[in-house]
């Protein structure tokens, strides 16, 4: 008995063996993600299909508004494919951000009654969105077949860009989730950010229309780099990539993640007292 792992609880000790604890609770992480997927599937009539219908309808609207009405350039790429290649990562980012930032409040009951590393909640929320993302990829494959767009070797780099989107969304999500526990105002901030972000990020248009001298600044929005990366990986050379901007975006995503995690860990000990 004596050599059993001894737990010491004292003020400020919440973070001891943080990563080991996280590993111990990996099953809970999977169970929570599994629960969310299962519940979504049961509660809605067409369940998982929603993750295809939503981007599909948005794609149609954007193609009509930006491609047909505003006649923005597409470098010879079919406009629906151009839009959908951007919508995929954007929707993943938007869903992951809003789900993860609400994850603590939605599970306040768990927070107040059970111990586990709190990071599990936003992380499993992001995982659920990742599953949605994979499902909506099916539609992209269909679109590319239809328009006969053949991706080149660049497609193997998709996971890298997806990883950047994950870092950016989880980082910002962790930060907002922690703030949300303390200040409920952020519940209203996130939908607003997501809505504005859809138009600020190059989802309905290509980055090429942004003036050259503002380009680098534009890339400070990490999703600009992710979206450009997705387009480049799927459409190949038809789509020019601004590599230094891309690096700036990647650095931003990493900064978001580091800062978000730091802020989350600093505040997570008090969650149960205020939630």
């Amino acid at each position, binding site marked *: 008995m004596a050599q059993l792992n001894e737990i010491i*609880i004292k*003020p400020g000790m919440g973070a001891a063996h943080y990563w080991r604890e996280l590993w111990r609770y990996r*099953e809970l992480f999977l169970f929570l993600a599994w629960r969310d997927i299962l*519940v979504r599937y049961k509660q809605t009539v067409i369940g998982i299909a929603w993750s295809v219908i939503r981007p599909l309808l948005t794609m149609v609207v954007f193609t009509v508004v930006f491609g047909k009405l505003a006649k923005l350039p597409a470098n010879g790429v079919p406009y629906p494919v151009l839009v959908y290649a951007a919508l995929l990562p954007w929707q993943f980012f938007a869903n992951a951000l809003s789900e993860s930032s609400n994850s603590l409040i939605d599970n306040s009951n*768990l927070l107040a009654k*059970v111990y586990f590393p709190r990071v599990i909640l936003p992380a499993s929320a992001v995982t659920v969105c990742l599953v949605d993302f994979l499902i909506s990829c099916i539609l992209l494959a269909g679109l590319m077949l239809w328009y006969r767009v053949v991706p080149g070797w660049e497609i193997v780099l998709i996971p890298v860009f997806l990883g950047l989107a994950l870092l950016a969304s989880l980082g910002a999500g962790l930060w907002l989730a922690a703030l949300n526990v303390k200040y*409920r*105002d952020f519940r209203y901030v996130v939908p607003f950010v997501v809505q504005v972000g859809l138009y600020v990020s190059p989802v309905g248009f290509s980055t090429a229309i942004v003036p050259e001298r503002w380009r680098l600044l534009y890339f400070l929005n990490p999703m600009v780099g992710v979206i450009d990366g997705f387009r480049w990986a799927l459409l190949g050379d038809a789509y020019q990539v601004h590599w230094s901007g891309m690096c700036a975006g990647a650095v931003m995503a990493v900064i978001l993640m580091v800062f978000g995690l730091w802020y989350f860990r600093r505040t997570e000990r008090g969650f*149960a*007292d205020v939630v």
Partner: protein
Amino acid sequence: MASVISVEKLSKKYLLRHQGTKEPYLALRDILAEKIKNTGSRLLGSGPPAAATRLEEFWALNDVSFEVEQGDRIGIIGSNGAGKSTLLKILSRITEPSKGTVRIRGRVASLLEVGTGFHPELTGRENIFLNGAVLGMGHAEIRARFDQIVDFAEIEKFLDTPVKRYSSGMYMRLAFAVAAHLEPEILVVDEVLAVGDAQFQAKCLGKMEEVSNRQGRTVLFVSHNLAAVRSLCTKGLLLENGTLNYFGSAAEAVERYLAPRQQGEGRPALRRVPRSGTSKVAIVDAALLNLTRKSREEAEVLDDLLLTICYEVHQPVKYLAFEWAIRDSRGAAVAFSSSAPMDRYLFTPALGANRVECRLKRIPLSIGRYSIDLSVTIPNIECLDAVEGALVFSVTQCDPYQTGSQYRLERGPVFVETEWIADNKIAAGELSGAGS
């Protein structure tokens, strides 16, 4: 034997916010408004900063130290707000202490609420896995005990029904069954057994005893069910206003818990905050007068007593009901009464101070000390205020028939007025034929 839990000078501070909103969380507007107000008053040079009055420190736990040995079953008792739940939350690492250290050897599973993490849309089977994971069991572990859990909960037929369609009894059984099959070295249980029927409670208590006896596990257990604490626990821990009052034998802890209420010096219970209830109405004073003997808080069996409750109404309320419950010195409930069945318009009081009286006629109690819990509710809607052990009285004589031998609590708390009839000239066969 080595101690499995050692708690040293443990304290937990909360900041209570007054005025403002009741929510524990802040709204950004509050912070901004406060900043502006402070700057404003500083510029004008008048009045103290507004923030100073808004926060008050509250020590939910203060300098608590104790050691728990392996295999102990510890009953944690104390009135509402004494710090029991805070202690459990710190032991289960949900919240951090403000000062002090806890050392725990072994895996802790805590059951602060039955069915945490249950999702109404999921089936019984799915919830077993989910709840198991929430309580810290691995997938393989749950699978290995799955049949036992289902057996214990008696829900085989409904395993694939969403739990939202379960009766509350089934829900409870399932939730407890999962928790009962955890096999941690240390089990921490909050007052989760207050719900559920008596038979189920007995089953749960039995399971807890078995876990600790047969498997040598340590159990910490909060309860208001003092009888269960006495019979189940090897040790008792009494908390009072956040400090450790007593740690030792369970029987002694229960005695001490009830003792201050039984000395009748002032009525500390009535001034105790926080307590349960929404406090739209607060019980501020209570008195017990012996109408037969014109004494206070002392009675003989079959005396008439007058219970007076003074209360203050802070917000308009309608259709109040007052309740009292008498407990004996072992903590078991002896009698209960509610004003609810009476004229419902009787207790729609005006704002401010009010009074209600209840006459207790010919109290049938044997010799012993008793405490009275008082509460005021809107029946089936909300509890407005509840005070455990608000009053204490003792019955000093219980021999109404002048037999020379007294009826004491040990023989049972209730004295029944009786009439014995002796007919010695009974004919053979008359008894069996009495019914015809």
